[in-house]
């Protein structure tokens, strides 16, 4: 099998290399890049993210990668957002009032409510609400690693394909056509996470 070229967008924040390394382990020729040309040539694009929503949006815009995201989404090639990379796809976040999100998926990102510790920094069980190619060959209830204090609330709830229970039911995975996004870190979720990334890589082939 040839290894599909996957562009992991590098806009200089935190630990982005883990996603790239896990994609390589999952069969991709994954490269950390801020080169729009390489992103255009790639079979799939991944937008990772850690830290605060506003800081990530600012960094993404400063790296001039915002248009690359829009182009990739519009091209119908597989696109994946991870953690804050998922949150940035939404309209806005209460974490950073006044900062516009990418608005690829309509909805907001809200503080996790309830009598629970924040951040949710733990493994949790995924509840699959709608079958998706991303979950192929995964156990019925996969275990994955979350780190977040805020959680996406899509306007159209039918984009939610998996949730997790933490104080309330939180959005864990969304799917909108070629765009898929996970609140958890598949690159840090051991075998279930690697399998999920492998499914994404397969969709890029």
């Amino acid at each position: 099998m040839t290894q599909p070229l996957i562009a992991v967008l590098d806009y200089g924040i935190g630990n982005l290399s883990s996603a790239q390394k896990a994609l390589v382990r999952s069969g991709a020729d994954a490269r950390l890049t801020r080169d729009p040309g390489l992103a255009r040539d790639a079979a799939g694009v991944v937008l990772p993210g850690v830290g605060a929503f506003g800081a990530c949006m600012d960094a993404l815009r400063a790296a001039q990668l915002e248009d690359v995201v829009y182009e990739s989404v519009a091209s119908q090639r597989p696109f994946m957002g991870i953690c804050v990379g998922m949150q940035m796809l939404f309209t806005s976040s209460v974490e950073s009032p006044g900062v516009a999100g990418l608005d690829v998926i309509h909805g907001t990102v809200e503080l996790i409510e309830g009598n629970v510790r924040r951040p949710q920094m733990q493994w949790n069980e995924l509840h699959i609400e709608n079958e998706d190619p991303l979950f192929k060959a995964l156990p019925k209830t996969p275990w994955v690693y979350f780190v977040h204090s805020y959680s996406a609330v899509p306007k159209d709830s039918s984009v939610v394909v998996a949730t997790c229970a933490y104080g309330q039911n939180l959005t864990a995975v969304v799917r909108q056509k070629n765009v898929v996004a996970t609140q958890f870190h598949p690159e840090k979720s051991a075998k279930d996470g690697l399998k999920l990334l492998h499914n994404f890589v397969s969709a890029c082939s």
Partner: protein
Amino acid sequence: MEVARVIPCLDVTNGRVVKGVNFVDLRDAGDPVELAARYDLQGADELVFLDITASSDNRNTMIHVVERTAAEVFIPFTVGGGIRALEDARGILRAGADKVSVNTSAVERPQLINEIAAEFGVQCVVCAVDAKRTADGSGWEVFLHGGRTPTGKNALEWITEAVQRGAGEILLTSMDRDGTREGFDIELTRAVCDSVGVPVIASGGVGSLQHLVDGVVQGHASGVLAASIFHFGEHTIAEAKALMSAQGVVVRPV
């Protein structure tokens, strides 16, 4: 649903794991990456590497360990020891660590917590606190340098301040229990867990699997850290989780 984490801790110096790690049929027990991969396979939820020499010469060696681990091990890991400045944190995180743990430098210059949190997010910042019961028994004091240096700081007050400054997690070690194998200081653990809203990892004193259960059930800890009971092959992560689960603690199945 809160899910308790089981976290082995590896002490590293000059790129090798020390404090005698003795795993059955492991070819090279001193290689941190090999040990980390073993714990990943066993079902550990996270790992902590503690760079116990942390001289500046050693810094590049640790970065190399972090890079190799990130390419081989796909569970979260924290690196602590010798992170004195934002630059140190940046190097470790860019190499592939998920979190950095600060201890002495944060006590000496608390602003360091704000700086790392502002740049990388609160989820990257673990504040490690070594606490010892005061002579009059009224509370706990923060100690530095492995329990040798008293600071005069009240542990609960310092932890509250660290969280306000942006620590996303507390790694709490009882210096009274560390190395004793008598179990966590439950009173200390519970006092801290009940006073902050961020996750707290209990550490210091684990000698049996029951101690791990007690840390969560009685101490209210979000995670439990242990070294020797796992390193010497006395117990596996699976055994730990089986006992925790049997006593009602929710854990990720192995």
